[in-house]
């Protein structure tokens, strides 16, 4: 089903065309597991598209395809950049990495953190790496690096404070944090840098009401900055607060149920 709403004048930030994906389970004798059946989607700067539907429909899978984490079998994922449109489905790994550094952010349900790194650095590193010009070798020596690191940490500290993450946790590696604490580190990492495309997979899953409100606020700010947001929100309240419109993913071709499209006002 084509998503025809949102008649914005400018080219949308993201255009998904005819994306099909299936998993081939070689360990089960090559059984094919189709997950995405011709997804079409547009997302413009400043809007938030919520993917809705029952679990197992491929919502998380689509988000991962948009992040480049999963490959697609057919179709295009066109991201608008300063250099023109890039098809993420065909992009070279180096391109994907470059886009992830500055243009695409991804907040998942699970925090996969480097074992020993303190929470504040987990997020600060994203800032620092975006600042690293690809041609700079060893960021001008120890001192310049320290300065940049301190500045980045200060920014992260501000965001952590907003997310009500206790300062006592900032210097600790997040592996031992509770689900909600890890989630907030994840969110900080996704929001610390303004991105063109923001991908959110259940960003408020383990959070209490107060922190859910902070996240809603962060999403509003991202939209105001011109980010195109694509998210999965299990929490209806959050979804209603942030989503410009909702989209169902197309189901498998031989099912009789026609996909339903819901619209909500921003």
């Amino acid at each position, binding site marked *: 089903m084509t998503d025809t709403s949102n008649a914005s004048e400018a080219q949308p930030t993201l255009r998904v065309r005819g994306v099909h994906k299936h*998993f*081939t*389970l*070689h*360990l089960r004798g090559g059984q094919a597991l189709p997950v995405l059946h011709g997804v079409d989607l547009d997302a413009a700067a400043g809007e938030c598209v919520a993917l809705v539907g029952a679990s197992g429909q491929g919502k998380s899978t689509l988000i*991962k395809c948009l992040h*480049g*984490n*999963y*490959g697609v079998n057919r179709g295009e994922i066109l991201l608008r950049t300063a*250099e023109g449109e890039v098809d993420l489905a065909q992009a*070279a*790994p*180096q*391109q*994907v*990495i*470059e886009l992830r550094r500055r243009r695409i952010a991804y907040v998942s349900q699970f925090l*996969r953190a*480097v*074992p*020993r*790194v303190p929470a504040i650095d987990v997020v600060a590193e994203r800032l620092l*790496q975006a600042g*690293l010009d*690809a*041609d*700079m*070798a*060893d*960021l001008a020596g*120890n001192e310049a*690096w320290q300065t940049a690191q301190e500045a980045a940490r200060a920014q992260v500290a501000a965001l952590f404070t907003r997310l009500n993450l206790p300062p006592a946790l900032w210097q600790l590696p997040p592996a031992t944090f509770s689900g909600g604490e890890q989630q907030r580190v994840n969110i900080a990492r996704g929001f610390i840098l303004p991105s063109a495309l923001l991908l959110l997979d259940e960003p408020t899953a383990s959070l209490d009401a107060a922190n859910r409100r902070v996240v809603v606020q962060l999403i509003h700010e991202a939209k105001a900055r011109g980010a195109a947001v694509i998210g999965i929100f299990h929490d209806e309240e959050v979804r209603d607060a942030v989503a410009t419109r909702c989209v169902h993913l197309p189901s498998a071709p031989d099912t009789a149920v026609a996909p339903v499209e819901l619209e909500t006002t921003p």
Partner: protein
Amino acid sequence: MNGTTRAPLLQAEALSFRFPGETQGRDAVRHASLDLYPGEVLAVVGESGSGKTTLLNCLAGRLAPREGSVRYRCASDEWVDVHAMPERQRRLLARTEWGFVEQHAAAGLRMGVSAGANIGERLMGLGERHYGRLRDSAADWMSRVELDAARIDESPRHYSGGMRQRLQIARNLVTRPRLVLMDEPTTGLDVSVQAKLLDLIRLLVARMHVAAVVVTHDLGVARLLAHRTLVMQGGRIVEHGLTDRVLDDPQHPYTQLLVSSVVAP
């Protein structure tokens, strides 16, 4: 910046290598090709016998392939054939623009001399003749790899395995190489030591914009360190791509087997 518009740093084309005396006609590495870009980390994963270390040694110029080529782009932007160049030039590159971190630090260090001498050797080879400056550089690098600089005059014989690896890394990075090859750099070390060392490697490589090829049988190491990953089986590269994609959305049956075999703690 578009990654594909930069020129690659290292290009291997259809490499095949067979060990001398191998009568079965089996290649240890078969038709392997890869490109490596500046500042990018490539993991080569596979099980024992997959050919990953042999591939690494071919890239380093230590083993001569029977087919194919390995080309490297020097700092001067000139392309050289790694195996066709004279031994003297290759050794010079190995001491300056390249690094090689051995699995067993003792193979990559001079165990009979002090830590300071180990780190300073490459600098001296480049013409540094001021003892004071050599010592300062060595001490600086020891602190960068989180070794106690007060132990600069001790022989690495007195160091633990993790410390020796750090020293090996310092010894290689002191000339700011553009390419570092690592053969199972953390295998055999205690888990906590591994974690710290991997973290160090990760940070240094990123900060110094070093391109690296890391051979490992540990998928976690690949995920942690590498932008891209190659999967080898029976001497062939069966899958390659973005690390998180290869590990999370494996296409090849062997990759799927590898990924599903990992025991999560």
